[in-house]
């Protein structure tokens, strides 16, 4: 049987997640329950959304260094305006998404490196967040809190949400026409252009879509934490990039996988828990986080090798 490269891109992250999960269950059997799974994974939901947003940007060969500060900004908006006066909150979000689209347009028109523009934007979002919440606070809107803490039957919310995110984005990016065009821009801009599409609109749309998912990430995050601060999600920049890579995505060439990205986000979260369960001396706890990242990625290599052997057989 011939395995397509897209499938391979999925099998490997899924296998590493499964292995890691098995290890966690072995070390902490209590995790093997409804509550346990929810506790393990609920903070992965906002990360997964941010990862999907980053993946969209990476699909058009760009990189968003402002993801963390933007999600922080969205969290601050959620905990303040969206909670107090939803209409203004929604307007701010629409403005933010429009800003993302505008960034896409600017990057395209002036052929600027996305890294620099988003680096600049990261200061802007950070500044806006500090202005909004000079010290931590705010309150989650009731519905966001309800959504993130609801307890559906049989399967915990964290898992349901991850699956929904994975499926929706898979359909959007891998199956729909828009998704094909977005990935086409990453694969070969000129051919998309020559086929008569407006690449500038495509890029703007992609950025706006990424902005939208980042907004969702901010809302989900506040739903979990109940409040926000200006630095709440700074780590999401690196986490989201790592998640995309772990999920089999690549920096250039429009090679991305939404399901993989969600799995990548789950894997990263799980890797952190795995460490807590290992009880390492505090001196080395930080180092162990590095080590586990290395192990998980090395696993990817190992599985890759196995798969290659299968294929050449």
């Amino acid at each position, binding site marked *: 049987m011939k395995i397509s490269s897209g499938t391979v891109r999925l099998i490997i992250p899924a296998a590493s997640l499964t292995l890691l999960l098995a290890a966690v269950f072995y070390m*902490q059997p*209590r*995790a093997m329950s409804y509550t*346990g799974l929810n*506790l*393990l994974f*609920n*903070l992965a939901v*906002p*990360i997964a959304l941010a990862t999907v947003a980053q993946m969209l940007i990476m699909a058009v060969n760009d990189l968003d260094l402002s993801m963390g500060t933007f999600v922080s900004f969205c969290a601050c908006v959620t905990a303040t305006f969206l909670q107090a006066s939803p209409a203004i909150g929604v307007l701010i979000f629409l403005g933010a998404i429009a800003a993302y689209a505008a960034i896409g347009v600017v990057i395209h028109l002036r052929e600027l490196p996305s890294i620099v523009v988003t680096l600049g934007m990261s200061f802007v979002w950070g500044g806006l*967040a*500090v202005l909004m*919440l*000079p*010290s*931590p*606070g*705010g309150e989650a809107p009731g519905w966001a809190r309800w959504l993130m*803490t609801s307890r559906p039957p049989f399967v915990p919310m964290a898992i349901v949400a991850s699956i929904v995110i994975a499926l929706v984005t898979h359909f959007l990016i891998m199956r729909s026409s828009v998704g094909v065009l977005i990935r086409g821009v990453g694969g070969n801009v000129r051919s998309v252009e020559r086929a008569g599409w407006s690449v500038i609109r495509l890029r703007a749309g992609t950025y706006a879509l990424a902005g939208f998912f980042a907004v969702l990430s901010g809302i989900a*995050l506040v739903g*979990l*934490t*109940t*409040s*926000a*601060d*200006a*630095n*709440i*999600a*700074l*780590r999401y920049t690196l986490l989201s990039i790592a998640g995309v890579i772990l999920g089999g995505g690549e920096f250039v060439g429009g090679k991305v996988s939404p399901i993989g990205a969600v799995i990548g986000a789950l894997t990263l*979260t799980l890797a*952190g*828990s795995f460490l*807590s*369960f290992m*009880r390492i001396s*505090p001196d080395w*706890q*930080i180092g162990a*986080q590095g080590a586990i990242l290395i192990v998980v990625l090395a696993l990817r290599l190992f599985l890759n090798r196995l798969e290659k052997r299968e294929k050449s057989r």
Partner: protein
Amino acid sequence: VAGPVSALADTSGKKIALSNNYAGNSWRQAMLTSWDKITKDAVAKKVVAAADPFTTAENQATEQAAQIQNMILQGYDAIVVNAASPTALNGAIKEACNAGITVVSFDGIVTEPCAWRIAVDFKAMGESQVEYLAKKMPKGGNLLEIRGLAGVSVDDQIHAGIQAGVQKNPQFKIVGSVNGDWAQDVAQRAVAGILPSLPEIAAVVTQGGDGYGAAQAFAAAKRPTPTIVMGNREDELVWWKQQKDKDGYETMSVSIAPGVSTLAFWVAQQILDGKQVKKDLVVPFLRIDQGNLETNLASTQKGGVANVEYALEDAQKVISSAK
């Protein structure tokens, strides 16, 4: 006061975890060392079954929330937490409380009502700096303020205290304010950048740990050294001592003692023991003055932070005095 025997009987099977959000500066390292020292002893004496410290890689509420959720899974009886954010951990802390876990927060406290708080009045700490300066130089003068990390509550509180102090003492005027991110090199960089454009500075108010960097920046710019409020770091104290010996330089130093983690440990132990403890406890900050500089310097580890560690009895005193 309950005898040690009964405490031993009640909590010897209990497990306590420390959730720490940051380990990247000397204060946090001293805090972890104090924790290690006191709790090892307590575990050896079978006061508690375990007292494991956990640290996250980056100073992030989300990561710490995940850490606390893992602690719930691991079945700890109490969690002592130095929080990255007073509110952003509330979700995770609520879950811990629901699971029947005692949560005690210190230094970086949390607002979730089910948790205990061992708070330092950071606002008063900021105010005390200006008050000291008002006494020292009644004529007042220009102040340079070095702030911490923007968007963090401690920074906001100390700043509010300093502002309140300046309002009460209008002879002082803040002519410059920079963010030093509680990092020596960042503070030095920021001060060096703003210094050339500032008028004469009478004093520098800080948030702890930035004093030495500020002194360096003033020296590099060849400006007269103002009164710099210190933050209990050993290098600051040594510098102060040198200046004092040279020309009688006067200042004060104030910060929260890293050993407060051990107080939080004992408070958690007492709660597990069934003691009635008020939800809000206050610990004094550790202040060093011209008079007790030498004694404090002598007891401070080279390159470390001036510290006080707490024993069970001290904790019981703090608890009972709050009643």
